[in-house]
């Protein structure tokens, strides 16, 4: 039995009368891609927020590498090995592609108090940033301003910034959002290769990508986990199909 990298235990969060997360317990194991799916309003984003530190749960725990991080700040969780990508690209649009990656490398270095050195000449940062850009295929775009990138390239840069952190776990919030078929395929291949580096908790609407990538799937409806298991089981589950497709349709 392997120790999960990331685990939530009975997470609960409500906003007034609305229960956004209801006793959610999921885990992320080494080497896997664990997809979380569910109709709109199922509480996926709220769950991600609680895992990454943006929202504090009313109840329950978030465990990262066996440590309780439930009350840790977003920064502390990032330092402990959590890398998150955003559903809507959160990149410094005025900065160059390389600078965005450098920012990740700077965070990973843990030493932002450098006032004299040129950021682009700091070898430790640059190597890390370029390796990450190379991995997602953006190395030749380094000098371009982020605002000039295509939507697909921004999605790739999101992943690259996460990569610079050399994380223990990736949390990806709809990385395929807004991508066409080709872009989606390209990013799917990229994520497929990442699972050896660190497991991925993947929240995604694109079912082709989910079925192509996921080792396990958890289905969230109205804040509750209604099923979790290997892809084949979920695909075969009548209850899931009814709940998920029924509500989505």
């Amino acid at each position: 039995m392997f120790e999960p990298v990331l685990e939530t235990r009975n997470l609960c969060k409500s906003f007034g009368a609305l229960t956004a997360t209801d006793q959610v317990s999921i885990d992320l194991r080494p080497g896997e891609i664990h997809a979380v799916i569910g109709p709109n309003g199922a509480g996926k984003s709220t769950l991600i927020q609680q895992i990454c530190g943006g929202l504090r749960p009313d109840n329950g725990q978030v465990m990262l590498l066996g440590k309780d991080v439930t009350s840790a700040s977003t920064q502390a969780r990032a330092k402990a090995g959590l890398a998150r990508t955003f559903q809507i690209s959160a990149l410094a649009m005025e900065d160059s592609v390389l600078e965005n990656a450098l920012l990740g490398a700077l965070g990973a270095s843990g030493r932002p108090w450098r006032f004299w050195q040129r950021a682009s000449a700091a070898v430790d940062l640059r190597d890390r940033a370029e390796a990450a850009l190379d991995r997602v295929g953006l190395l030749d775009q380094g000098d371009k301003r982020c605002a000039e990138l295509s939507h697909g390239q921004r999605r790739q840069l999101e992943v690259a910034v996460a990569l610079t952190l050399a994380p223990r776990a990736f949390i990806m919030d709809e990385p395929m959002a807004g991508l066409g078929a080709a872009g989606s395929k390209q990013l799917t291949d990229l994520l497929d290769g990442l699972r050896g580096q660190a497991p991925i908790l993947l929240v995604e609407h694109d079912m082709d990508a989910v079925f192509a990538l996921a080792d396990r799937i958890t289905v969230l409806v109205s804040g509750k986990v209604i099923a979790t298991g290997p892809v084949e089981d979920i695909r075969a589950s009548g209850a899931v199909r009814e709940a998920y497709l029924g509500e989505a349709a």
Partner: protein
Amino acid sequence: MIRESYLNWLILLGLLAVPIWALTADEPFTITLATRAAILALAAVGLNIALGIGGLVSFGHAMFFGIGGYVMGILAYHAQSFTPLDLGAFSIAGTKSMPIIWLVALILSGLAAWIVGLLSLRTGGVYFIMITLAFAQMFFYFSISWSTYGGEDGLSIYVRNGFPGLNTLDPIQFFGICFVLLCLVLFLNARLQGSPFGLALNAARQVPARVETVGLDPMRIKLLAFVISGAITGLAGALFADLNRFVSPTMFSWQMSGEFIVLIIIGGVGRLMGPVVGASLFVLLEHWLGGLTEFWHIYLGTILLLIVLFARGGLIGFLTGKEGAHV
């Protein structure tokens, strides 16, 4: 269209050439005007670090300007009246030495910025503007009621403070001091902007959520930027008081804070030389138009309006053809 790096050098050379010309033409008042421009530029360079790179629209930077001014005023006042400065537990002698005054001004205004920053950086947008304004107003009213140091009337210093090896009463030498300090701070600013810290600060303005997610604390980064910014404006305040040999509550006024913001907007927000261009133009207009009409601010307002409407990158953005500060 001109490359920004060339333009920057041209601007500095221009600011240097005017007083040198004035020296040969024997027009000491023009040197004083150039000195005034250099000092206002220095104050605005300080603000530009917080406002331009960090996106912290401080409407209270006069607070640091005034602190610097009063540091100079109080230390020099005790030196010229040969009275000790009583600090409660112990007392110190005043001083007429510029380097010491500068150091105290840097430290105290930086300290004030740290405290104000701690309290106000939790807010953003309009609330940040209002809180910084409120702090500056507190200093303003305090200085008015502080009768020991002149209250509303301010404090006159009879002889300009000294700098080892220089005659500071000679306008061109005092200009030299201010110009060198301005260049030094501009150089530091340029380094800071390209440094890893500058990168993080720039990102903290654009996407704080991202900065957190990579494991950095955007608050601490902004706070440090605010402290550096306040300290520089404080240094400018000490020089400004030395230029006029006079310090009064006006240095704490909200009009002063507004003026700094206007200087930056005219020159170009976040541009290295934006404050220098803004301050030079401001002093020029103040002198020329101020001679023609008492209501010269109308023209300044018109220029500001035109820049905000048609040249979002300020004059530097207009001349380089690049609207964004970051290229």
